[in-house]
């Protein structure tokens, strides 16, 4: 027995049970991802408590317009992938595949903007680990701020890259009708998590400049 290219494994009673188990597995994985980033958000909170001025100066150094553009891009991409699921649910594989591929394309645009931001930091002498000319006159704690910034946004960018790979694969499989709806929904769950993490990274690194 198979459905949308997914075979029923011997240890499951039905496709429904198998799909439920896969979905539950994804949710547990997402919870573990939340804890991975949660540890870094905790570091941010503790270091900001210790060096509030350095963090405010560091946030002001980031380009809020670029960060906001990236936020709008990721939200739009999450919307497109749910539209893709809606279309696939109605049997429209072609439009669904295009919507899922568009989601991955927006992910690429996000990474290009993030790369541009990193390039701007490097040109200003801001490198991870407190290396670079910027830190000679920067307030104490600036090295910690920017190291954490590169770590958290870099780890997030890796997640975006993995998510894009999953979405491109999903788009191809959906176009061939070789992926079940549950499979596409699980792939989309991962992308939404990437969106959720950025929704918190954005105010912490682009908006909270202090008074």
């Amino acid at each position, binding site marked *: 027995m198979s459905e949308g290219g997914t075979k029923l494994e011997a240890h499951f009673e039905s496709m429904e049970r198998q799909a439920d188990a896969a979905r*539950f597995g994804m949710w547990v994985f997402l919870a573990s991802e939340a*804890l991975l980033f949660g540890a870094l958000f905790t570091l941010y909170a503790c270091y900001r*408590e210790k060096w509030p001025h350095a963090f405010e100066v560091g946030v002001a150094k980031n380009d*809020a317009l670029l960060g906001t553009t990236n936020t709008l891009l990721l*939200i739009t991409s999450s919307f497109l992938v749910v539209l893709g699921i809606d279309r696939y649910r109605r049997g429209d594989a072609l439009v669904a595949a295009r919507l899922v591929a568009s989601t991955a394309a927006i992910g690429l645009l996000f990474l290009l903007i993030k790369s541009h931001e990193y390039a701007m930091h490097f040109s200003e002498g801001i490198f991870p680990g407190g290396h670079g000319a910027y830190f000679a006159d920067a307030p104490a704690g600036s090295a910690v701020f920017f190291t954490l910034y590169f770590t958290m946004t870099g780890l997030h960018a890796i997640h975006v890259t993995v998510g894009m790979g999953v979405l491109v694969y999903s788009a191809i499989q959906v176009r061939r009708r070789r992926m079940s709806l549950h499979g596409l929904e699980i792939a989309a769950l991962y992308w939404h998590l990437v*969106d959720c993490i950025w929704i918190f990274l954005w105010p912490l690194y682009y*908006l909270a*400049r202090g008074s």
Partner: protein
Amino acid sequence: MNDGSEASTALAPDGSPSRITTGTHVKSFAALIVLTLVSFGASYLHLGVFEMPVALAIAAMKVSVVGLFFMSLFEETSSNRLAAVAGVLFVLMLLTFAVADIVMRGR
């Protein structure tokens, strides 16, 4: 744009219906865009000590919208909801106790 009313009756290739319609997804998207613009605007109001709580409260609202309607927690099974809630709860515990430790040191 479909109004989404048919989504509740449309069956998936593998037979699963959804109670979350396309119309709900469009409204959720609109809410996320509005909340993003509100958060961006609020960052220029110089809210002082309220700056971070306001920004984080709006972020929490946005993540709730994504979770409930894009990730379908609204109609998810209780075991999947439990995994999601446990993840959030554990992160909050980690944050609360670690920050409380830093703030209370030396008192």
